[in-house]
């Protein structure tokens, strides 16, 4: 549930508001999440418990005292201005109903919607509901590794210098500090020489520049990836940000989108992988300028694009805003408080769903293979995971997002450790016909004399019982 507090400026109180203030109003909207898996099996029983996480809002209405100075005015055409902390200025029509509708719209933007819930629970929801593009944000993980690479395919013409350390300290570190609640981040950088794109750009006579069309972009990444060294990095997911300085013979190089227009940022990104930006260098003023040209990369322009790509990779985007909304720019912090809340919320829900299915499938595995031995530490991890996930759900119900997220992170760590414990390998499967085939040749020859002698003993015992009656 999302608590919303509405403060009225003097003169804007709607006429039909009830007289007593503060006034509480609770609106509940259950979110349907379908649950049939593609092969018709029922979804794990743990999933319906999550459906109570329904968006709703309880609004507290207050009126501002008249002594305040006059409030800022929203420009024409904008009805809502969303600030970078957790507040927004709203202009609504007369009457409570219009205000309610506007607030509902605002809540959907600033907190969660049905589609964002479904996206967070993405792999437990069957395919029909979401397109294949819906689940492409980075999965919730304990840490991420960010690698900045400068690709210089033509060092003979360009001597490129980039102050990456300064740029990381000045521009990237504030964003990562704000995101440090979500995960641990580690940053590294490298420069690669003679690394070419896999695609040859076309020369366009009208603009006298080289163009890379949108459908050749997917093939750009693969030839470079082998040289990036991302496999040497940690076990955390790696995000690669590449800055490509085109060769002298292919300058200037622009990316063309589907409609044929050059892209203003000259950059593209691939979900769950990272982003590439092309940095063009102007031709030297005189053709006799000595090569290599010394180039100092404008890190601000580059970091603006890379940080925007980082936001998009995490799934924080401005695209779903209704038209009359305007959002305050978060400045060097990179993201607004409510965007961070959304991210935390999505990751918490994803973690809880993951823990639920992991523990359920572990239980199913143990049911199937009854002779698996569970070690004590695996058992204690399972108990810890269950306790943490119950904590997380309780905190989420209270609305305490940070502690819910921490609890869900602990739950995920414990459940993954329990599930992926190397001792749980089930090499103990014996199909029944193989059991017969193995044991019968061992036991049958041994069993034959035993059975025969047992039969003989029984016969003798029966004869002895009969004999006394014969003897007189």
């Amino acid at each position: 549930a999302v608590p919303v507090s509405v403060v009225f400026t003097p003169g804007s109180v709607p006429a039909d508001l009830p007289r007593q203030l503060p006034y509480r109003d609770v609106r509940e909207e259950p979110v349907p999440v379908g649950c049939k898996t593609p092969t018709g099996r029922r979804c794990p029983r743990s999933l319906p418990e999550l459906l109570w996480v329904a968006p709703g809002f309880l609004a507290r209405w207050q009126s501002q005292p008249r002594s305040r100075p006059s409030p800022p005015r929203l420009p024409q055409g904008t009805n809502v201005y969303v600030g970078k902390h957790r507040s927004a200025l709203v202009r609504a029509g007369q009457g409570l109903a219009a205000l309610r509708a506007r607030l509902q719209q605002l809540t959907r933007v600033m907190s969660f919607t049905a589609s964002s819930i479904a996206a967070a629970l993405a792999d437990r929801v069957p395919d029909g509901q979401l397109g294949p593009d819906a689940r492409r944000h980075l999965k919730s993980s304990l840490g991420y590794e960010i690698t900045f690479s400068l690709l210089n395919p033509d060092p003979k013409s360009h001597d490129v210098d980039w102050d990456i350390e300064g740029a990381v300290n000045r521009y990237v570190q504030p964003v990562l500090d704000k995101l440090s609640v979500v995960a641990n981040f580690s940053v590294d950088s490298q420069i690669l020489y003679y690394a070419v794109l896999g695609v040859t750009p076309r020369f366009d006579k009208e603009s006298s520049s080289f163009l890379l069309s949108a459908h050749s972009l997917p093939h750009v990444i693969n030839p470079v990836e082998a040289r990036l060294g991302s496999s040497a990095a940690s076990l955390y997911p790696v995000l690669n940000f590449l800055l490509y300085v085109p060769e002298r013979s292919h300058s200037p190089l622009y990316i063309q989108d589907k409609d044929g227009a050059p892209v203003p940022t000259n950059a593209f990104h691939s979900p769950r992988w990272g982003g590439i930006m092309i940095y063009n260098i102007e031709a030297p003023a005189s053709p006799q300028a000595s090569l290599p040209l010394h180039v100092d990369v404008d890190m601000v322009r580059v970091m603006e694009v890379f940080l925007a790509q980082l936001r998009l990779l995490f799934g924080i985007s401005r695209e779903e805003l209704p038209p009359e909304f305007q959002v305050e720019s978060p400045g060097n912090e990179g993201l607004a408080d409510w965007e961070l809340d959304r991210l935390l919320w999505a990751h918490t829900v994803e973690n809880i769903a993951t823990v639920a299915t992991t523990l359920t499938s572990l239980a199913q595995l143990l049911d199937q293979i009854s002779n698996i031995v569970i070690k004590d530490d695996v058992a204690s991890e399972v108990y810890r995971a269950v306790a943490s996930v119950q904590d997380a759900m309780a905190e989420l119900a209270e609305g305490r997002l940070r502690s819910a997220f921490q609890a869900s992170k602990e739950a995920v760590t414990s459940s993954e450790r329990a599930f992926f414990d190397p001792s749980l390998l089930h090499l103990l499967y014996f199909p029944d016909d193989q059991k017969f085939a193995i044991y019968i040749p061992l036991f049958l020859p041994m069993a034959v004399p035993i059975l025969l002698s047992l039969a003989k003993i029984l016969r003798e015992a029966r004869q002895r019982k009969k004999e006394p009656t014969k003897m007189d």
Partner: protein
Amino acid sequence: MAAALSAAALLLGCCGAALASGVQDQAEQFFRSGHTNNWAVLVCTSRFWFNYRHVANTLSVYRSVKRLGIPDSHIVLMLADDMACNPRNPKPATVFSHKNMELNVYGDDVEVDYRSYEVTVENFLRVLTGRIPPSTPRSKRLLSDDRSNILIYMTGHGGNGFLKFQDSEEITNVELADAFEQMWQKRRYNELLFIIDTCQGASMYERFYSPNIMALASSQVGEDSLSHQPDLGIGVHLMDRYTFYVLEFLEEIHPASQTNMNDLFQVCPKSLCVSTPGHRTDLFQRDPQNVLITDFFGSVRKVEITTETISLDRDLAGFENELPKDELATEPLKYADQLPVAQIIHQIPAEQSV
């Protein structure tokens, strides 16, 4: 009147075209796979020099998969024996796939992750299910997620319901199906393509029950898969028939090609292969017609143009984040007390204080 009619016709035509392109976009959207990365697990399970062809099979698939874009960091290659440096190889450091030594599939940049005795049923199942000891290096792990398409290729000697590993142990089809189910439970794959080239290969995919798996085998139950041709210079059979024709088919695929799975099903008909290749698609959600070969064998990334930027304050100069320098241990380092080795060896008694 005629002008109005023609204008109306033009309008309708435009609408029709727009609608058609809109519908086509939607159709493309629906039939595309939702994966963002590709992995490949290629396993050769046979030892000994006369099983050269199995290693050549695996290396040919490895080569095609690398050529089509999957990087080494996303390929787990398991070869049970070393043919290239085998003392019986008349051409050391090469593994050929075609007689007359036309194609050396060993190449210069082969990265074998599990080699010789490390290729066991246990390690294979550990790779698939992820239950790996924490000391395993990253190159030996399958770090796939729920948006990964995985290609699993296995070759060796097999029978009805089992595949022989290293001539000493077997993996049964039930174990394999259970391993895939464990992968599905943890969403370690988006879609899986399983190709097996052994005798009676179809028995290995009979027991699968997890969704999103497509399987191909080189022969049906009761049939043997046969090898292609021997090379008289090397002295052994170089490739198996099914993989030979699959390799020929894959040589014509390039990263942007639109060939779909139905063409792969037609590779190697009975006339060429002598055995009947089989396939299984009932667990797969999409129609094989819409599945591109590059969805599994290559690595075509989804890209999006970056249209948003954020605005940074250029003049915010003061945020130099002084990281605290790590305090190194300041006490001087010295050796620990050494064992009096000389005394021990030469039986010199330690000096006693009287």
